[in-house]
Structures are given as C-alpha cells and as structure tokens.
C-alpha cells in the first residue's frame, strides 16, 4: 500500500497569500494513500528539508509530494533531500502551487480548491513512480579529429597534450588545409608557412596522435563515449614506411601537366606528387586518375627509379575500424569557383582569378615563386582591381550571408601587390569594410593610407576584355554614383566562402544537422557554439561557418576543452528519464525508428538458447535517448514507455482530475 507524504510550502507568503496552505494539507491528508501531510513556511530551507527527511524515515514513506514552486526550480533540491533520507529520489514529485496557482489567481476558495486538486494529481502520480538509478555509460578516452587544417591541428594538439589519444583523419595527402595555401596572414602579415609548419610537425611527431592522411570517414555508428568509426585509408600506392622522401620518383614521372589542386589550378604537378614542399607527411602519393600505369597499364618509371622500392601499385584501399569517445569535425571550408559570375567573365578571361589563386601567385612556394604574373601571358600586372563581396551578401545568387574574411584578405592582397610593385595601381570595389577583429581596422587603414590602395565604394556591374585589357565597369556611390571604368591587367574576385562540396554527405554519416548552406549546425548559436545536437560530436573552425584563423584556433581550443571535460570522468552519468521497450508486446514493426530524432531506437534479435530467432524487437540505446517520448505516444501496442512519464503515471494524473460525481452512475 502506498505511504505518501505531502509537504505544502508557504514559500514565505508567496503561496500562502492566496492559498490556504493549512487547508490544503488537511484536505490532502484524506487522500487515499497519504499517511503524512503538513504545511511549512519555507520547504526549501534546511529546516524544511529536514522535515521531509525525518518524515520519510519516521513514517517509512514510499512517495513524497512537495507542493511548492515550479519543479523546474527546486525539483533537484527536493530529490536530493529525498535521496539523503534513503528514499529513491525519483519517488519525489512536485506540485506547482506557486507559478501555476498562487501567483496567478486571487485569494478565493477556488484557488485553494485548485491547489488541493493539483496536489491530488501528483499524489496519484507518485503512487505509480518507480525507483530509478542514473544511467552509466562507459567512455572510450580517444578523440577523433576529422580534418587536418589549423582548426583540426589545434584541437588535436590540445586534446593530445592533456594526455588523451587522438586520431586525425585528413582527406588530402598532407595536413595544413587552406592555411597552408596562404602566402601571408592578416593582420600581422607573418608568413603562414612559418607559423603553421611547426604545428604540423608537432602533430606528426606527437606520441598521442595517430595521423591518417589521404583518408576519409567511411561510417560512424554508436553514441557518445562509444563511437565505432570506420576510416577508409585510400591507397597511396607508396609505402610511407619504406619511402625516404628523396623525390626521385617525382622528377622521373613523365606526366607533368596535371593542374595542381594546392596551387588552385595555376601550377602543374606530376602523377606522383607531394602537394607542397613543407607537406606533412613529406612523402608522395600516386594520383590514380592521371597515372598512365593505372590508366593504360604502361610506364611504371617511378617504381624502377625508387631506391627504397617503396612503390606498390597493387596497394588497395584499407578500412580501419577505431573506437573513439568524441568526434571533432574540423573539415574547413571552400571558396566559390564555378562560373558563378558570367558578368565578370570568371572562367572566360584567364586574368580574372579568385582570392586563393592570388594567394598562390603571391606565395614564395607558389607556381611563380612569389612574383605576380598574369596567368594569360605571364606579364607582371601594373593595375589590379580587387572586387569584394563577389557572391557573398547576394540573395539573388543564393548566398545571402557575409563570408567574414574577404574584407581582410582583400586589403592584404592589395598590400602585397603594392609591396611587390610600388608604382602599381590597386583598386578595391567594396560595399562595406568589415574589419572588426583586433588590429583589423588599423590594417585596412594602413592599406589605404600608406600603400594608397584606391578603395571605391560601389559594385562592379560587369567586366569585358578590350585589346588585352580588362575593362571593369563599376560605380562610385560616394561621388553621387558616377559610373567608373577602370582598365585593369588582372582582376581578383573575393568569392564567397562556402561549405565543402561533400559536407552534406559527412553530416549525414555523423548524423549531425546542417544549415541550408551545408555548414554544420551548432547546438545553440550563443550558448553551445562548439557542440552539435548529437551528443559527443563537436565542431571546430570554418565547417560551422566562415571564420578567420584567430576565431578558428580559439574555437578549436574550446572544442578541445569540451572533449577533455567529457574524458575527465570514466563514466557518463545521465538522467534515467529515458524510454524502454517491453519485449513481450513489441511486434517489431519499427515504425517508431524514424520518429526518434536521436536515432536511439535499434533492432534487437531475441533468440532461443538453440539460436532460433523468436522475433526482432525495438531496443532503446540508453546513451542516445534524450527522453522526448515521441515514440511512446506513437507505439500502437504501447510497448515503449518512458521513465518519469510512464503511461500509468500520466493516466493516473488525468484520472485524478475533476471526477464528476454523476459519472459514478449514481
């Protein structure tokens, strides 16, 4: 038989000002199952909580109903007090007499009646409460970092330095990401290779970090603390253990004319190549789509010349299964390339290039060794026009957002051009300059005042070629919108920063959500920017939204802190208010599976001892289920229920309401 204690709080006089608490306690004492019912001025105070604890022990209570403020406020407090008295905390429920009753009604009998009825609802519910114990989920203290750009590197190093194992997976033959392709970085103009390469080497040599380059994520299963990840190590056709990195094979390779992705298509590379001199690992990879051995079965020169016999054509893709506790997505971003701007002649006129191509032209390790040369005729340009917001902030083109980094790198590009060609003519067409970072605006002012870059506020309507010159037609809105036509030798478009083309596919593998532009969605834009809605998967860098290097690094360290916090306990304890399945009545129709936003419903086979299959039923993964209950209301045979809000509890609550006398057929 239930032995329930009711504790009515005055909350100073927040409740007692409009509700007769003594009367409520007295009415409650007559409810069937209630053995102890009192009212007290401050239930949540220490003496108040002691009252509850003593009552539990003295009257051997099996259920506690505290009629006070909102459970969203003090449910944890009273549940902790109940636990300390030796009663399972989940046998304590709260009736909301303050926010839902005393504060919102006047002092009348109906208010006290309502309070009494709210208490009876919870008394009936508590009779069906079960003892629940927090769920313990083990954690594998290894982190997976997807993406080897500066974001991935920073996160990996922070986690590894805190003593945990890290597995880094990079799609390209070398880590370094977009930052490696930059010449110099704003606002300090220090060379990106110099500040990045040491970090890349640190990653390669760090004892806690296992690095897989030229590898992609094949599949991700499991849940927070227990992810099962399959990595596809694409065949490099080169045994990196044997290879010494001498580069003989690269020299001898007859195929020289493959447009080099690292140099954004401006330089060429061989079929067997190392992306850039400071690559980590600094060992070549064979591009099987362009190597004649793989296309026509002939050549094989690299194998002949290799002193370490490290070339193995028969190498196959390899699937590596790893167990990790947390996943950091740091897959970076891309910039818009396609003929997105027919009016600018991008893709039609070779001298109209994008920001990354300019970086390569300006970079010492670039195809022109740092000398700016026009891709069309190789001449050094005297006049360059830089166009900001080429694609960003343009709803008609489908990219309404601001890519955040172009104002700064456009100013940097103009500066680099002026440093390399003092009497060169640099013009920048802009809408608004967004230089909000530390020392950012000063950087742009320097470009304008010291390097006299001509900033014209207006958009370029079109570019056309006329006797070898590019005529840039724009407008200067600050000189009452006078049309402006500039003859330029080269035009650099600061095209929009967009998500990687395969980001949607990766998001689906990771079961994380992404926004309409395929950037990954954070859990909460302001309060949980580094986590996603899928527990255990975090974001770092531009894969979440366009971002410059300082923001990427600070976000990466934030993400690393979250991972280390997760790994600080051996087990993950979670509120036990999750769903559970009754195997007897579940008929395995699995219509519930697609309802669960957390993919927490799995298939479980029930077999007899001799192995014959009895039936397949639904199974709730305690790690993933967040307790929303949508599957519970959907299940036709009521085979799924949810602790804390079981069918019997809610049914009892609804049945305890009103109870018209005439219903009883009298």
């Amino acid at each position, binding site marked *: 038989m239930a032995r329930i204690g009711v504790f009515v709080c005055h909350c100073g006089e927040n409740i007692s000002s409009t509700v007769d608490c003594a009367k409520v306690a007295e009415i409650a004492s007559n409810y069937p199952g209630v053995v102890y019912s009192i009212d007290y001025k401050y239930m949540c105070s220490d003496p108040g909580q002691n009252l509850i604890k003593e009552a539990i022990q003295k009257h051997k209570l099996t259920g506690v109903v505290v009629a006070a403020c909102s459970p969203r406020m003090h449910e944890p407090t009273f549940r902790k007090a109940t636990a300390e008295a030796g009663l399972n905390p989940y046998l304590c429920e709260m009736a909301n007499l303050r926010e839902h009753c005393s504060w919102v009604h006047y002092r009348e009998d109906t208010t006290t009646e309502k309070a009494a009825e709210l208490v009876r609802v919870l008394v009936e519910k508590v009779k069906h409460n079960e003892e629940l114990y927090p769920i313990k989920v083990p954690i594998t203290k290894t982190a997976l970092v997807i993406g080897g750009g500066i974001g991935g590197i920073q996160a990996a190093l922070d986690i590894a330095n805190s003593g945990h194992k890290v597995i880094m997976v990079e799609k390209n033959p070398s880590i370094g990401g977009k930052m490696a392709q930059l010449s110099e970085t704003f606002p300090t103009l220090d060379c990106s290779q110099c500040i990045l390469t040491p970090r890349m080497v640190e990653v390669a040599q760090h004892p806690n970090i296992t690095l897989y380059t030229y590898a992609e994520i094949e599949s991700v299963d499991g849940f927070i603390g227990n992810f099962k990840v399959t990595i596809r190590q694409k065949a490099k056709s080169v045994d990196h253990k044997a290879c010494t990195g001498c580069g003989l094979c690269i020299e001898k390779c007859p195929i020289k004319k493959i447009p080099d992705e690292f140099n954004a298509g401006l330089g060429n590379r061989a079929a067997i190549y190392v992306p850039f001199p400071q690559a980590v690992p600094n060992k070549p990879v064979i591009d099987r789509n362009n190597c004649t051995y793989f296309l026509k079965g002939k050549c094989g020169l690299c194998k002949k010349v290799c002193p370490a016999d490290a070339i193995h054509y028969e190498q196959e893709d390899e699937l590596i299964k790893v167990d990790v506790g947390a996943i950091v997505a740091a897959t970076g971003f891309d910039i818009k390339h396609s003929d997105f701007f027919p009016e600018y002649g991008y893709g039609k006129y070779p001298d109209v290039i994008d920001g990354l191509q300019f970086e390569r032209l300006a970079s010492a390790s670039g195809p022109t060794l740092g000398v700016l040369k026009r891709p069309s005729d190789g001449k050094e340009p005297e006049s360059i026009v830089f166009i900001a917001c080429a694609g960003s902030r343009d709803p008609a083109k489908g990219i309404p957002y601001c890519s955040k980094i172009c104002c700064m790198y456009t100013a940097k590009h103009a500066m680099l051009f002026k440093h390399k060609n003092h009497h060169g003519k640099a013009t920048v067409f802009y809408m608004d300059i967004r230089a909000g970072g530390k020392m950012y605006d000063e950087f742009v002012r320097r470009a304008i005042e010291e390097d006299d870059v001509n900033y014209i506020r207006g958009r370029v309507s079109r570019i056309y070629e006329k006797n070898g010159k590019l005529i840039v037609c724009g407008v200067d809105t600050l000189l009452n919108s006078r049309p402006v036509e500039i003859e330029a030798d080269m035009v650099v478009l600061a095209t929009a920063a967009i998500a990687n083309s395969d980001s949607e596919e990766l998001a689906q593998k990771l079961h994380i959500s992404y926004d309409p532009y395929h950037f990954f969605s954070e859990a909460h834009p302001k309060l949980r920017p580094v986590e996603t809605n899928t527990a255990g998967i975090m974001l770092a860098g531009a894969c979440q939204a366009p971002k410059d290097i300082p923001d990427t690094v600070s976000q990466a360290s934030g993400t690393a802190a979250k991972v280390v916090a997760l790994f600080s306990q051996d087990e993950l304890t979670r509120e036990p208010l999750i769903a559970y399945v009754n195997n*007897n*009545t579940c*008929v*395995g*129709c*699995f*219509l*519930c*599976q*697609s*309802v669960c936003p957390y993919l927490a419903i799995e298939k479980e086979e029930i077999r007899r001892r001799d192995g014959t299959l009895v039936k*397949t039923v639904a199974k709730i993964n305690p790690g993933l289920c967040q307790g929303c209950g949508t599957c519970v209301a*959907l299940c*036709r*045979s*009521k085979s799924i229920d949810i602790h804390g809000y079981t*069918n*019997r509890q809610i*049914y*009892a609550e609804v049945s305890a309401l009103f109870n018209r006398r005439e219903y009883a057929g009298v």
Partner: protein
Amino acid sequence: MSELINKVSQFFSSGIIDLFIGYKKGRLGEGKPAFFTKPEQLNELIFDENCIVNLAVYLRKPELKKYSKIGVLANFGTLRALLQLAAENQIADGQYLILTVADGKVLEFANLKAIEEYVANNLPKPNPERIAFLKEIESKSREERWEFWTRELASCIRCYACRAACPLCYCEQCLVECNQPQWVGVPPTGMGNLEWHIVRAMHLAGRCIGCGECEAACPMEIPIGFLTQKLNMAIISNFGQVPGTKLEPDYALSTFKVDDKENFIR
C-alpha cells in the same frame, strides 16, 4: 480458372509449396477462404471479384509455421497488404509465393519489388458510392454526425471481428487487452465503443490499404470502413503518402514536413 489450378498443382508436385491459400465456393456466390495441401483438392479452387477476404490476415497464424513454403492467391487488397506488411518488417522478401490473376492471366510475382510495380500502375479509383456516402455524412451538421456515429457505434458488441479480419492488426497484445492503464473501456458502453473505434482508426491512419474487410466482417453492419477511409484520404491529400504502395517504410505519422499545413493551431 483451369490455368490457375494446373499452375498451382505444378507448384505442389514440384515441391515448391506445401500449402496454398486460396478461395472456394462459399455462401451466396461469394468466395470463402480455403487452404489446400494436396493437388487433388484444387478442383474446388476459385478466384473472382467476389473473393474479398484478405488472405494476408492468415500469414501471422502460428499454425502456419509448420509449412515450409506457402503460396497465396492475392487479390489487389492482399497485394497492398503484403507491401505494407513488408514495409513494417512483418514479412520478408521471398517468404511466400504470391500469385494473382489479372484479366484472365495468372501472374506470379518474382519478388516484392514486382508487386510494388504492379500495385503502382493498377491503383483503382475509389468506388463512387462510398465517396457519395462519405460526402453525405460530411454534409450533415456536427450534431447530426455525432448522433449518427454514436448511435451506430453504440450497437458495436466488441466482438473485434474488424480487428481479426484486418491484415494490419497483427499486434500480439492489442491495446484493448492492456489494463495497466485501461486505455479503452472494455464494456461495450457508448463511451468504450467510441474510444475503441477511435483507437482502431488512428492505428490504421496512414497504414490502411482499403481492402474493406473490417466493414465486411462487422456482424452489426456498422460502416466503420469510412473512419479509416476518411483518414487515409486526408493523409494522401495532405502529405501525399499512399499506404501499401511502397516497400520502404513511408508511415505518415512517423515522418513530417517542416511546412505541414494546418489551420487550427493558435
């Protein structure tokens, strides 16, 4: 009919099947369900538009477990039921040998995919009298509709023939047999009957394939088929998901669109 009979007896003789579920002569010219285990019984096998009992309802019976391979003579309702059962993980591909007769020719379906295509391009128009009757009910005022349905449902005796005749009501323990909590009142009072028929309609919403067997089986001649038919017409027009036409689960109540239209939420 003879082409069907000797095709089935071939299956028997070559040991492909050891039980064939079909129809034989019943009362008033209707076909009634019949189970054939030996070729010589097959001369009673018939199949015409009066054979309306949905044979998919028998696939869940434990007595069928001892037969290794079962052949089923499927009318259009049975085909759609098989698709919906497959979508709900109840039957596997190739578990049964499925035949139908389309304009005189015997069709054997290699797999469920073949059934999916056959169903896709043979979807029948809803029968006009039922649509007219539904229109007539909907034209009544609210009070009249309430009075019509509470009177009709009150004569329900809770024999659960509608549940037993429906191939998609395969739960081992039906909700009405759950008494902790007692969701649906067991006594056939006006209230209990209404709750039972609301639950049955909601459980078939987005699943019912419209074979009409529940209404045919009801001994009290209550037009319960219209409850599920109305819901599924609404689901098809609102969400475009047609039950019993796809192998992949496409259940209206466990999927959603961000821009689902409604006009009653404040």
